[in-house]
């Protein structure tokens, strides 16, 4: 196993090098492409940190959805000839910025290297809670997200909703209610359509699978939802599906369903289990899967709507 440390060091150097490239690249588009590659490499680092759930999230979001978001943004800016802006700071400012950044990075490296041993951990408490009554989840991270720190997760879904509304709100008044602009203006190639026709259904199936096994194995609502979102975006890029009108009632209901169901079950917990966001003993697992199913729906709809951008009056069908 002596090659593993070498591989780790190689991976670490590669990640830092690609990150440096996204900062140093002259061209906006090159830096965006660098960032997409960086996201995928980072997923490997997460695997090495024994964090498969985060690796899945990072690959789906960092590499996938963020990639589409940034590439689309880069192309739209390109079309507007707005990829350049003002002169950068002068040499002196650059040196000051570099010194400050080096100082922060150095201090952080020192702090990380001197974290206490043995490290404090909530893993024993989480294990005890998972073994206790009313639990029944094999994946401790899902248990943290949906049970022990349910309040965080519910509020974070509202953050997603606010982001969707914030994005819509920068659109024009007279476009309100209409659909966002398509991800690609041009008619797609045959290859793209073929890819979408084959990949999207398989990917969607895998997304549902990742959500379903997430209770006991790596995966979960967000990862599954993000994969479904990515497949919807593939279909949108191939113009097999169009983004819905933002005024559509069904879209609104799908977007709020995750946090709304979570909040309702959380409130009901006060009556059924004696505390807000507590689950009645014996029903924890089915209730958690029930909440997660709606969160998958919300995530799968919210992410593509965020990438698609504000409503665009021109693309009215």
């Amino acid at each position, binding site marked *: 196993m002596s090659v593993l440390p070498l591989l780790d060091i190689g991976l670490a150097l590669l990640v830092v090098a690609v990150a440096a490239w996204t900062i140093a690249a002259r061209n906006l588009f090159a830096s965006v492409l660098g960032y997409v590659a960086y996201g995928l490499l980072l997923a490997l680092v997460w695997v090495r940190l024994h964090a498969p759930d985060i690796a899945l999230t990072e690959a789906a979001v960092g590499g996938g959805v963020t990639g589409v978001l940034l590439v689309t943004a880069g192309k739209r800016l390109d079309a507007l000839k707005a990829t350049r802006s003002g002169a950068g700071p002068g040499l002196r400012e650059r040196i000051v910025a570099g010194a400050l950044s080096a100082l922060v990075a150095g201090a952080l490296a020192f702090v990380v290297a001197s974290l206490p041993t043995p490290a404090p951990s909530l893993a024993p408490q989480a294990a005890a809670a998972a073994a206790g009554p009313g639990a029944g989840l094999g994946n401790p991270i899902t248990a943290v997200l949906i049970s022990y720190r349910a309040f965080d997760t519910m509020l974070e879904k509202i953050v997603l909703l606010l982001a969707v509304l914030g994005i819509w709100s920068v659109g024009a008044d007279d476009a309100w209610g209409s659909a966002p602009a398509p991800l690609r203006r041009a008619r797609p190639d045959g*290859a*793209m359509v*073929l*890819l979408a026709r*084959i*990949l999207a259904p398989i990917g969607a199936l895998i997304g549902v699978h990742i959500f379903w096994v997430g209770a006991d194995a790596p995966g979960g609502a967000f990862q599954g939802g993000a994969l479904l979102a990515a497949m919807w975006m593939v279909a949108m890029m191939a113009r097999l599906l169009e983004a819905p009108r933002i005024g559509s009632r069904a879209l609104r209901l799908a977007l709020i369903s995750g946090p709304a169901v979570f909040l309702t079950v959380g409130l009901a917990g006060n009556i059924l289990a004696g505390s807000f966001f507590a689950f009645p003993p014996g029903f924890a697992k089915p209730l958690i899967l029930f909440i997660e199913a709606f969160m998958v729906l919300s995530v799968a709809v919210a992410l593509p709507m965020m990438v698609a951008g504000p409503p665009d009056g021109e693309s009215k069908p």
Partner: protein
Amino acid sequence: MSVLADLFSLAAVGAGVFFFIAGTAGLLRFPDSLTRLHALSKADNLGLGLVVLGLIPRAENPLAALKLVVVWALVLLSGASTAQLIGRVLRRGRE
């Protein structure tokens, strides 16, 4: 038996790695984008296929082995389509 399986895995994964290295060399050394694409897609498809083939005997159960094959098939599909798309963009750029 297990020695034989190990040898098979070693040979197949080794061959896969060789194709990856060859493809990467092509990516770095070939003169223009189309030939680079050509080198890369060969390496990916064949190299990954060999790696998957080598790993199948080491899978814990048939389902895991099937997953490996599915991974390869998905990469084949997306690799072939993206190569196609990039190729078309390049051709359009030349015209």
